[in-house]
């Protein structure tokens, strides 16, 4: 039986969120990501991992730089795949890792990177390390700890109790499943994808959330603000929010350093399986276009006024490791002690 | 209108020129390292701010504030280049390059950008920038803080070079430099800052490109630059005791050069000595010598002699430094040799 394999997918393309010009976010630069990966590798090694496979890059080489000059007992090889320099690389790397039986995948990136990974990772659990302040899906965790936890997950000492299956949003256009989001789907009146990020509230019409958690940042923070208003849900649930006047107003941290009151016309809780149909509308309620759909905070789809968009909330998203729980399990199972 | 006359030091004269010009034209701003001093430090009196490393710009920040007197980080290429950009876009900056020896750090911005942009843009732009800088040995400041090097600047088309030797000249020439629409480098000899002299009050301008006869004579012309004017005056007193009458021509501006005054003097005395504190190769001295050899060849009774620093960096130890700087004694010896 092959020894456990852990995958590392580190996204070098940071700094594309132009909200940094209008808000106060920061991003770990690629030299810092290299340092994080070094710490991850040392954590993996300490957990007994001997095989690592990583997503190759065509320019910077975060993981290969992290490896260079290090004396590690584990072996780390780049995945054999073409490199396009786009998010498709992350998706393909995740798929390959799943096919190769990886026991865990560690990612470095934001919501967008993890969205791509989620399209390919299947049931392989993720340890998503956040490398910026504008993210909801990944979390801030120190690299060594992340490596330890991922290593114990891959060796099988840590089981499903230390993981959560996350929901996701399936996006269909004119009846065809087209794309997906992990956190939110937004209908924006901005006609072009452009610089991707959303920062002008006046252009945002509807928001569909995969879950409602307090303490997030971005449009998903509206969900937390509104949860007290709607009937409390016992099962994890999402929310559909239509912005506008005539309803209530919610205070939300929409970007790092940017907290504002947002006019909400209507909102409702969503359960798994619910479908929301949305399109961009004029003030009178007529369809307008072209408009864009943003996935996890980035404009991705440019659509005409006639396009019909349906967003389905699904419960069968990626598995995400809870690092403290994982290490707790490993400790209780005796892996952190020796006589 | 200059009426009253009083004594000021060379440093005070420069300070006064800056004050008058800054009052006169709101586009004039000062930039440089510690030109005000103590930026953003609290709890000290503005009166105690340095006003330049040797206090030449002291007190100006009290009147004009830190929006017009800008302390800069130690980034010559950055702030001298920014001064060029500001000059090309409507301001009239006076930037300080603390010691001329630092020009290597920002030379591109001076000679390849500021000096050339008017020409390269077909005359459709101008760079009304003044760069003030300290020159001169004698303070024991050693190899990287004691040079002259105005020859390098004079060599570049697009730069004007001004080298005052007295307080009155310093004030009038700095005013002219600031009002000039070209890039002017203003060389202040640090050993002259304490020199006192009569300086007219109020506004006045000494035109660039006009030399000054600092002493009239008939036997020999000495062209002297910067502090060497003072050395030549001392030498002239010693030679007068031997009955030798020395005429001292102070060019005051090297680019443009007042060729006429120099050549007229040589035509009068028929002998020429040039005293220059700079190193001898490719210097202002050799430049003026070539001019005289070309245009006053038939007037000369004796070869042109140059009294300069040696071809070395400035040494530190006092006897070595004194050896380096042309002394009145060396000037006297050179003149006596020519006079036979």
């Amino acid at each position, binding site marked *: 039986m092959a020894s456990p394999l852990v995958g590392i997918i580190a996204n070098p393309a*940071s*700094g*594309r969120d*132009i909200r*940094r*010009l*209008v*808000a106060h976010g*920061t991003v770990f*630069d*690629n*030299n810092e990501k290299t340092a994080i990966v070094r710490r991850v590798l040392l954590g993996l090694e300490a957990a007994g991992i001997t095989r690592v496979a990583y997503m190759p890059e065509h*320019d*910077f080489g975060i993981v290969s730089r992290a490896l260079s000059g290090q004396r590690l007992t584990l072996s780390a090889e780049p995945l054999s795949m073409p490199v396009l320099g786009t998010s498709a690389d992350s998706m393909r790397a995740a798929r390959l890792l799943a096919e190769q039986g990886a026991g865990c995948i560690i990612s470095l990136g934001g919501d967008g990177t993890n969205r791509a990974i989620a399209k390919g990772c299947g049931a392989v659990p993720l340890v998503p390390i956040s490398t910026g302040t504008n993210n909801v899906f990944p979390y801030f965790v120190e690299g060594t700890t992340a490596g330890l936890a991922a290593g114990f997950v891959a060796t099988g000492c840590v089981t499903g109790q230390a993981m959560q299956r996350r929901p996701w949003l399936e996006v269909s256009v004119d009846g065809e499943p087209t794309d997906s989001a992990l956190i939110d789907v937004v209908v924006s009146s901005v*006609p072009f994808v*452009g*610089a991707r990020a*959303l*920062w*002008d*509230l*006046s252009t*945002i019409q509807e928001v569909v959330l995969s879950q409602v958690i307090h303490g997030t940042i971005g449009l998903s923070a509206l969900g937390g603000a509104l949860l007290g208003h709607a009937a409390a849900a016992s099962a994890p649930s999402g929310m559909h929010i239509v912005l506008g006047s005539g309803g209530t107003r919610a205070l939300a941290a*929409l970007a790092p350093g*940017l907290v*504002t009151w947002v006019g909400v016309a209507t909102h409702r809780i969503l359960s798994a399986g619910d479908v929301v149909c949305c399109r961009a509308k004029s003030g009178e309620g007529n369809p307008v276009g072209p408009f864009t759909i943003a996935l996890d905070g980035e404009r991705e789809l440019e659509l005409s006024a006639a396009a019909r968009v349906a967003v389905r909330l699904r419960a069968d998203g990626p598995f995400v490791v809870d690092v403290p729980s994982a290490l707790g399990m490993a400790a209780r199972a005796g892996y952190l002690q020796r006589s | 209108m200059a009426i009253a006359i009083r004594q000021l030091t060379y440093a005070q004269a420069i300070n006064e020129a800056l004050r008058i010009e800054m009052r006169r034209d709101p586009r004039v*701003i000062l930039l440089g390292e510690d030109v005000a001093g103590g930026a953003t430090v609290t709890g000290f009196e503005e009166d105690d701010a340095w006003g330049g490393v040797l206090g030449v710009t002291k007190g100006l920040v009290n009147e004009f504030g830190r929006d017009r007197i800008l302390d800069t*980080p130690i*980034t010559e*290429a*950055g*702030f*001298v*280049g*920014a001064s*060029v*950009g*500001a*000059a*090309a876009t*409507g*301001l009239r900056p006076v930037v300080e390059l603390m010691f001329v020896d630092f020009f290597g750090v920002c030379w591109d911005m001076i000679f390849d*950008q500021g000096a050339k*942009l*008017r*020409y*390269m*843009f*077909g*005359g*459709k*732009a101008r760079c*009304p920038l003044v760069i003030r800088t300290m020159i001169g040995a004698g303070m024991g400041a050693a190899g990287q803080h004691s040079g002259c090097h105005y020859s390098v600047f004079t060599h570049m088309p697009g730069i*004007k070079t001004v080298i005052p030797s007295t307080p009155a000249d310093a004030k009038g020439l700095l005013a002219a430099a600031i009002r*000039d*629409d*070209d890039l002017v480098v203003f060389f202040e000899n640090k050993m002259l800052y304490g020199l006192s002299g009569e300086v007219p009050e109020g506004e006045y301008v000494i*035109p660039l*490109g006009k030399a000054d006869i600092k002493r009239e004579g008939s036997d020999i012309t000495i062209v002297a630059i910067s502090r060497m004017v003072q050395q030549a005056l001392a030498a002239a007193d010693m030679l007068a005791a031997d009955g030798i009458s020395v005429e001292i021509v102070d060019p005051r501006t090297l680019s*443009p050069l007042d060729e006429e005054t120099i050549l007229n003097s040589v035509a009068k005395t028929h002998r020429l000595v040039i005293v220059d504190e700079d190193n001898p190769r490719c210097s202002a001295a050799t430049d003026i010598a070539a001019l005289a050899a070309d245009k006053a060849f038939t007037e000369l009774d004796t070869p042109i002699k140059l009294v300069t620093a040696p071809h070395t960096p400035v040494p530190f130890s006092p006897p070595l430094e004194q050896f380096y700087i042309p002394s009145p004694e060396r000037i006297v010896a050179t003149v006596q040799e020519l006079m036979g």
Partner: protein
Amino acid sequence: MATKNDSPGVQALDKAHLLHMYEQMVTIRQFEERAGKEFAAGKIPGFVHLYAGEEAVAVGVCSHLTDDDFITSHHRGHGHCIAKGVDLREMVAELLGKEAGACRGKGGSMHIADVHKGMLGANGIVGGGLPLATGAGLTAKQQGRGQVAVCFFGDGAANQGTFHESLNLAGIWKLPVVYVAENNGYAESTPVTYHMSCRDIAERAAGYHMPGVTVDGLNIFAVYEAAGEAIARARRGEGPSLIECKTYRYFGHFEGDAITYRSKEEVDSYRSRDAIQSLRRSLAERGIAPDTELDAVDEQVQERIDDAWRFAEAAPLPAPEDALTDVYVSYP
């Protein structure tokens, strides 16, 4: 989310604006392609450095500027000149060294300028424009009427001392300068993966007290949005920004460059993402402007380029003695 936003977002771009941006990009492309041909035919003295491929950056940024704002450029400057409104006839005449040129024939390709339109010159020194733009920003701040200075520079210049000094100065003085890094992957023949110690130039902004963002320089809307925010920020007095545009030049560092350091596959891959074709598709697919209308724009541009060349070729060379003028305003 900025609910008070001084920057006109892409949603404010009406058809006239969009067509103007398209026309400017095509003008740059055709200008450069014609210059390349004429250079190969021996008609242009000296060197030319062609901007073809990078049009979205110049146009996306300069769309937010007026004649009252300043830009500095570099050796690959034709695109910035055109985007800033320098006259085409004067530009070609300058390439040919004619007296009717923008610089009276005294500068050539690497020094084309039009100071009255705020174009402070192409520059033959890598990194030379950075302090100059910073100084223009100082003027703008002193004059207090909301002007901005934009500095275009390349990945090569991002390592120069002047880059670091200029950003530091703008950061401490909060100058209204937008530093636009045109990262086309190569400094002459040396790739960024070798010459830069960071991956993205924007990462360096953090050290200089200003925000830095990286955008797809082949996407005119991405450039337009990022530049719009940065320029609005500067006009509001909030200080400088660094925008890095990842882009690509189709031709060599200079014309005559054998370009052995890039593969045909790489060039083809970028050509397939051509910024002008992308904009064309966007406009056609949305019914904003059909292909036929855009073809007509292409033809009009062609005529203006032809006209500029006819004018310049017929224009006289300067008299030899003109070499002596315009060194100084006055001398003595």
